[in-house]
């Protein structure tokens, strides 16, 4: 196992575990305010300190992990669910009008500044975690469509695909049965990258108040609440920020590691 894969897997795994564990156990109830204990720095009782309402920060970070990971993961789901079939269809009908329409549509979405459109969507339809998922997910669609198409094109010229065609299988069936399993590696690597980008995007949207709404904790909103208190209690800003960074670094390393694992040739000339 390579170093990136190990370290990335470890970091992402810890964050995932924290998120899952928060369903059954957190050190304190993340929503319970306890004003006498407010703004404590990390100590034996509150490992990561408390916020201005006396809420336990570790508990909030754990529950916040749930929001961040869920939003980013579902956004990747939208990208895979819609983008991959589009990419497969484009590759299967290479050069046709369908291919052309799908790819031009892709270029168009790419040309949009994603954050601006995400803000537009959440602003118009109301801020909520669901709308954040949709807004982030839309921009994952062309990414996966492009990866799926790019990976499939060369496969269509391979002999085992020709054999399947001679055997009378339809293009759709070949795409699902033979092409898809062969590009799964590429999709998994891209999935980790989009996952990490989704975490950053969710944090940004929540920070400006367009993501998950109170009382659901999210890392971005914790940062927004910390902003006015940062000089009094820097840990309020530092802890959720580190949670975001560790998760994103973990996922990026995991993506790098998986890429090397799936395609050892890349290790050599890796940039």
């Amino acid at each position, binding site marked *: 196992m390579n170093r990136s894969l190990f370290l990335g897997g470890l970091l992402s795994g810890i964050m995932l575990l924290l998120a899952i564990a928060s369903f059954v156990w957190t050190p304190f109830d993340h929503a319970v305010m306890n004003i006498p204990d407010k703004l404590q720095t990390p100590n034996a009782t509150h490992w990561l300190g408390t916020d201005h309402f006396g809420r336990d920060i570790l508990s909030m970070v754990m529950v916040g992990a749930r929001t961040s990971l869920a939003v980013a993961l579902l956004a990747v789901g939208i990208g895979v669910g819609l983008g991959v079939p589009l990419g497969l269809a484009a590759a299967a009908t290479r050069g046709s009008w369908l291919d052309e329409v799908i790819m031009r549509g892709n*270029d*168009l979405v790419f*040309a*949009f*500044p*994603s*954050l*601006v*459109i995400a*803000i*537009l*969507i959440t*602003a*118009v*339809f*109301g801020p909520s975690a669901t709308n954040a998922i949709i807004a982030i997910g839309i921009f994952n669609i062309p990414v996966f469509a492009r990866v799926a198409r790019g990976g499939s094109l060369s496969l269509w010229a391979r002999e085992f695909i020709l054999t399947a065609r001679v055997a009378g299988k339809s293009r759709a069936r070949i795409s699902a049965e033979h092409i898809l399993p062969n590009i799964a590696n590429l999709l998994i690597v891209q999935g980790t990258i989009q996952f*990490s980008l989704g975490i*950053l995007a969710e*944090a*940004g949207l929540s*920070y*400006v108040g367009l993501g998950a709404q109170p009382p659901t904790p999210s890392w*971005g909103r914790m*940062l927004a609440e*910390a*902003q006015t208190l*940062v*000089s009094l209690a*820097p840990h309020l*800003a*530092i802890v*959720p*920020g580190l949670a*975001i*960074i560790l998760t*994103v*670094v973990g996922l*990026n*390393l995991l993506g790098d590691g998986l890429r090397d694992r799936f395609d050892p040739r890349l290790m050599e000339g890796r*940039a």
Partner: protein
Amino acid sequence: MLHYLLKRLMSLILSLAVASMVIFAVIEVAPGDPASFMLGTGAQEDTVAALRSELGLDQGKVSRYLTWVGGMLTGDFGTSYTYRTPVAEMVGERLWVSLPLALYALTLSTLIALPAGIYAAARRGKAGDMAVMGATQLGVAVPNFWFAMLLVLVFAINLRWFSAGGFVGWDKGLWAGLHALTLPAVALALPQAAILARVMRSALLEVLGEDFMRSARAKGLSQRQAIRRHGVRNALIPVLTIIGLQFSFLLAGAIIIEQVFYLPGLGRLVFQAISARDLIVVESVVMLLVFAVILVNFLVDLTYAVVDPRLRRAA
């Protein structure tokens, strides 16, 4: 070249047309009627109707779309629902904060990233390379608004070198303006610099393996001279693309950074407009940002053709 130019121009126009339709459609389905929102809950029905007709809201969708697009083409962005002032005027004022901020950040990012990327490529596999790559790994993972908060904590609150937010205005002088934009620009620039440094490094590594680089060494240039004279120039194409794309990230990213520093830029305008349901302002600012991004991408494509004659022929 002309063919290439025309083809790109066509796709530019098409992108803008589709973008404007999408933005219009999204705003169109937004719940809530701006006229009743402006007049409050106690408003009489005929007053609301009168205001609707004054704002042109009683016309058909197509005619309103055409009026909006036609207006934007002639520099008339409509009138703000809440402030009753021309949107173009409001946008113009804010642009003087957002645009310099994005350009400042782009300059910083390029000035940091290119030397770092070149240094890392030249020292591939050595400690210097590892250090740069480690730093970029961290750089891409840091949310810029969080980084901005740390900058405020250290340089504004503790060291008091900069103010923690707000903008003095350009009439106080160029230096004062730049000083106020420095922390926001650094916050915006560093994560982008991390990406750019990685691209610079890998582009240069690719070029270093080319035959002409070996020839350059063979004719007696040192590694350093060969990189400076032949390597960097040939590696610039992918770098240029990313710089172009980054401009859009910076403009959009500025929206959030402006919130951190309370800068009176386009971002704050958008958020104020959103909370006041001043949809015409939201619509116009978003369209303007999309226009800027699409235009920059177009210009980047053109620059390619100038930098790399092969692309002219291929197109």
